[in-house]
């Protein structure tokens, strides 16, 4: 929404503020001004001049030399290339040292262009005559300006006066951000009311007098509203003997300030009142209305209709149509029909000012893909009481401007009259909510400024029907607050019962995950929750996998963002790929983000959201580096049992020989491995990639911040080495299981210190060497204490076909 300052001042005559003051104050009282444009910011020293004499340039065929009276008593000489001027024309003249906004071509120069005295082909020129483009505007807004050349004023323009003022360019246009609840502020009058209240000035709306001849409109047209839900009010008036002509300059200028192109008196009046009152209206050529009857009804199924922009559109039975005795003539509230539009030859016109159901207009406009100025206003839900004022205002203007003869009377189909709401008013409660001590009378004073009356007998505030947003006491509190000034409300902190600030256990464990990952060199990434269903193919996930059952977005931004992820790897691999392709070396990333597992397909209840801790890396490091990160995290999260790894994870996207499920407390809590070269290829990563995915809900279940001091061993340890040759297929983990099971009470720890596969031992075998540490808490160990355990271990290993080396 835009308004010019001059249009606001038309209703608040005492308003005397700078553009910046207006901007600041209006914003603080709730009508946010996003910015403003001073139309004359780059215009300087431009007056109305009259050409007294034109001569040919002695040395240039295309130039003329003009003597121009600029009201100083002395003519100035200006050389111009424009061909549209003649003697006695009144034109805008930039004097020496003045500025214009841009060039002939309409291109604006920031800061403007300075005009100086000079010579053109040897002839002195002491200023410049301007086109409308040079003044920073265009022919759209000033249709009377010539196609090409200098702007020429009407004869009554006063020589020597400011041309900027005469053109209405001494104005400021404000751009507002109006919130959807303030329907009334989508009209200039609504904003002017706010401005008057903000600056404590008198608000003077136009005085509408109901005009019309002695005829009766009911003799011209019949109106029947079939669907009063979708059309609570329909007002119609008739104008005859229409004289199409340009509208007056003042009206054109105001429309121009809103960015509306002036067309002719009838169209301009319609637009003017729409902007002024926020009430869209429509004009039909009454001679095209069959049976001189208007019926407001829903469209038939698959009804086709050609709108006045010449396009055929498909309707359905939820769309409200304006029809005549035979056919549809307009889509209610959105656009009129080609068949009934006003042409220059119109004789008699039907004026419509109606109120339509906002939601229906919004949905219809969406459905047919047509959004207009009118529908944009209707969909906010207009005040039906405004319609009658608007149509009378339009008819008043038609008479005032001599655009036609208004037929007496109004057809007004208005079923349930909308009354102003009444809200019980309790100033104490308002103060209690705001934390203020505003006097009751002060509040009522604020209310009065915006036309909220007070019924002192009942203690109720009476809300005008245009303020449909005011429903309860909290709404009145806001009205009081914004005119009292949000700035003037004190600042305090909540009192009352103290509460404990804290993070949930889940969030604390996530913090541990972040810390561990970062200590291990992983940086945190974030990726989208939705992705493409093609992801499953990239990850080589089989067609029948449960992972392919997803939560599907019904209106996605595109297929690439259409399903909620059921696996967290795609985001990670995509990020690693981005890094790889940008030649970043040794990249380690982690992410904490949800996957979304539907409980059923199609989804009927909320999916399960599971936080995944995903790690990925390429460059330095290998499988065991990643495994180390997993175990560091488990330790920090207080997982005290031993973690084991099952190589049969069966993840298709991982290297078949380099993957494992992570097992804790007999449960799979995640997996890790090297990315399958095919998958790496699918993500264009030409290095080995290692990933780990940890299911955080499982970890949270086992995690703990409890720690118990175990005592530091005071007695010496005994260390025994075990060197063995074992068949390749036996995993180190199986050997370690033997240590765990048979190590006895004194086995404190064991450590793999050598592993060898190669020519020194027979093929199919590998050699492992462990150092086992025994220790007692209460004594120095004798050989007899740990020898039986060693024997048991050795026996068990031998039973597995493992050869112990001495």
């Amino acid at each position, binding site marked *: 929404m835009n308004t010019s300052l001059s249009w606001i001042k038309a209703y608040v005559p005492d308003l005397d503020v700078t553009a910046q003051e207006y901007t600041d104050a209006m914003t603080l009282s709730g009508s946010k001004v996003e910015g403003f444009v001073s139309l004359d910011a780059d215009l300087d020293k431009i007056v109305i001049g009259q050409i007294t004499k034109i001569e040919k340039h002695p040395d240039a065929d295309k130039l003329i030399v003009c003597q121009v009276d600029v009201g100083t008593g002395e003519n100035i000489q200006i050389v111009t290339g424009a061909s549209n001027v003649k003697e006695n024309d009144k034109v805008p003249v930039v004097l020496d040292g003045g500025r214009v906004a841009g060039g002939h071509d309409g291109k604006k120069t920031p800061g403007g262009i300075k005009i100086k005295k000079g010579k053109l082909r040897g002839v002195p020129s002491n200023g410049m005559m301007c086109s409308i483009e040079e003044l920073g505007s265009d022919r759209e807004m000033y249709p009377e300006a010539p196609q090409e050349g200098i702007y020429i004023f009407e004869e009554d323009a006063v020589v020597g006066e400011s041309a900027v003022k005469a053109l209405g360019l001494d104005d400021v246009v404000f751009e507002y951000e109006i919130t959807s609840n303030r329907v009334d502020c989508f009209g200039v009058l609504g904003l002017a009311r706010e401005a008057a209240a903000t600056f404590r000035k008198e608000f003077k709306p136009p005085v509408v007098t109901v005009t019309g001849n002695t005829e009766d409109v009911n003799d011209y047209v019949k109106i029947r509203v079939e669907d009063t839900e979708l059309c609570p009010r329909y007002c119609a008036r008739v104008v005859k003997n229409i004289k199409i002509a340009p509208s007056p300059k003042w009206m054109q200028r105001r429309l121009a300030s809103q960015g509306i192109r002036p067309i002719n008196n009838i169209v301009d009046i319609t637009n003017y009142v729409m902007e002024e009152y926020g009430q869209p209206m429509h004009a039909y050529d009454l001679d095209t209305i069959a049976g001189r009857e208007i019926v407001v009804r829903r469209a038939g199924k698959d009804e086709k209709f050609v709108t006045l922009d010449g396009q055929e559109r498909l309707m359905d039975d939820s769309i409200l149509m304006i029809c005549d005795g035979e056919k549809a003539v307009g889509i209610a509230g959105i656009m009129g029909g080609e068949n009934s539009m006003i042409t220059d030859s119109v004789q008699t016109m039907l004026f419509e000012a109606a109120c339509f159901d906002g939601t229906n207009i919004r949905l219809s406009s969406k459905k047919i893909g047509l959004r207009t100025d009118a529908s944009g206003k209707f969909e906010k839900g207009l005040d039906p009481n405004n319609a009658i004022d608007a149509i009378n205002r339009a008819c008043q203007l038609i008479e005032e401007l001599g655009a036609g003869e208004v037929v007496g009377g109004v057809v007004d189909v208005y079923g349930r009259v909308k009354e102003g709401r009444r809200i019980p008013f309790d100033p104490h409660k308002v103060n*209690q909510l705001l934390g203020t001590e505003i006097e009751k009378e002060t509040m009522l004073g604020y209310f009065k400024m915006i036309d909220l009356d007070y019924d002192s007998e009942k203690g109720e505030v009476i809300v005008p029907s245009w303020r449909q947003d005011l429903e309860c006491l909290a709404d009145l509190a806001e009205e009081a607050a914004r005119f009292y000034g949000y700035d003037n409300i004190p600042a305090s902190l909540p009192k009352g019962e103290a509460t*404990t600030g804290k*993070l949930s256990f889940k969030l604390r464990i996530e913090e541990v995950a972040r810390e561990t990952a970062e200590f291990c060199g992983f940086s945190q990434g974030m990726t989208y929750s939705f992705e493409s269903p093609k992801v499953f193919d990239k990850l080589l996930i089989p067609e029948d996998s449960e992972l392919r059952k997803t939560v599907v977005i019904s209106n996605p931004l595109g297929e690439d963002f259409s399903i909620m992820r059921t696996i967290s790897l795609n985001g990670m691999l995509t990020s690693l790929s981005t890094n790889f392709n940008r030649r970043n070396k040794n990249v380690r990333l982690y992410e904490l983000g949800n996957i979304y597992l539907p409980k059923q397909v199609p989804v009927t209840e909320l999916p399960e959201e599971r936080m995944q801790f995903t790690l990925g890396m390429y460059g330095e490091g290998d499988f065991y580096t990643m495994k180390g990160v997993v175990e560091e995290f488990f330790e920090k999260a207080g997982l005290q049992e031993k973690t084991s790894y099952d190589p049969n994870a069966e993840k298709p996207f991982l290297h078949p020989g380099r993957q494992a499920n992570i097992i804790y407390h007999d449960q799979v809590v995640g997996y890790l491995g090297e990315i399958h070269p095919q998958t790496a290829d699918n993500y264009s990563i030409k290095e080995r990639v290692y990933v780990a995915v940890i299911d955080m809900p499982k970890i949270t279940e086992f995690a703990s911040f409890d720690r118990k001091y175990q005592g530091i061993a005071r007695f010496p340890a005994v260390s025994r080495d075990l060197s063995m040759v074992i068949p390749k297929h036996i995993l180190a983990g199986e050997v370690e299981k033997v240590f765990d099971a048979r190590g006895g009470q004194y086995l404190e720890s064991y450590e793999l210190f050598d592993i060898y596969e190669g020519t020194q031992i027979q093929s199919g075998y590998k050699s492992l060497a462990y150092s086992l540490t025994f220790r007692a808490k209460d004594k120095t160990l004798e050989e007899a204490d740990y020898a039986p355990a060693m024997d048991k271990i050795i026996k068990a290993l031998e039973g597995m076909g493992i050869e112990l080396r001495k």
Partner: protein
Amino acid sequence: MKEKLEQIKAEAIREIQNSDGLAKLNDVRVAFLGKKGELTAVLKSMKDVLPEERPVVGQLVNETRQSIERLIEQTKTKLEAAERDLKLKQEVIDVTLPAKKNRVGHRHPNTIALEEVERIFVGMGYEVVEGPEVEYDYYNFEALNIPANHPAKDEQDTFYINDKIVLRTQTSPVQVREMEKGKLPIRMIAPGRVFRSDEVDATHSPSFHQIEGLVVDKDITFADLKGTLAEFAKELFGEDTKVKFRPHHFPFTEPSAEVDVTCFKCKGKGCRFCKGAGWIEILGCGMVHPRVLKMSGIDPEEYSGFAFGVGLERIALLKYEIDDMRLLYENDHRFLKQF
């Protein structure tokens, strides 16, 4: 005898003084004080001394021994210090050679910003809670006073799963879930992912984060909201930060406000960063709408509350002067390692 001792002593002193290293000094020690040393030899010859002179001679021998020992000890300390000095001189390194870093990873700027916000509010007694990202339409809209067909539903460009389930467009539904639990008073913040169908560009992302705040108690006022958020802004952006509350509209709060803070680059003078305004909009807030309280089972006659919502990315972009939102989701290591 006495002369002999004097002579030994003088000789020892000379030898000690001539020692140019610890090894040499040790040789001297052995030569004079060792088992076969000269002084020991003197002691051994004590038997030749008259019994009545023995105590005198014995004392003399001891004194000589002690003075030699003392001198050796002193010289040893001196020589050791000299040797250490020499060693230290030889160990000089080039301290300007590159550091060996333990390549620690970096936290996402969103998270850093979030942790700052959490720290501030946890300090004020707020609990950090979470809610589902895929949410019922009821919690995302209806319970927040945004009924079916409300234009606000269009404004928020919602992603739908079906007509009952949406990707939450705001973290506000967590308010409702928290209020429904019925445990009062409430002081909470709820950070999390939200979704709106905006095409990706420098200032938009279909997925971003918000932090919702909610306080419900007896006698909570708009003044409390102002004080709380002023405190928050100062903590987050610096002690000299000023806040401005502008009236605004949200369906679930009344009165509502948008909050601007003084631009932390120019301190409110107006610069390119704040587009000359001197102020930067950071959040929306208001008093919880009585209808929202009622729908969540709280009596608005007895309780009141305030709520606010902050865009996390907005804070991160502003605070770290990141000029393109897409950087936050690309995870380029060269970007991440700056935080």
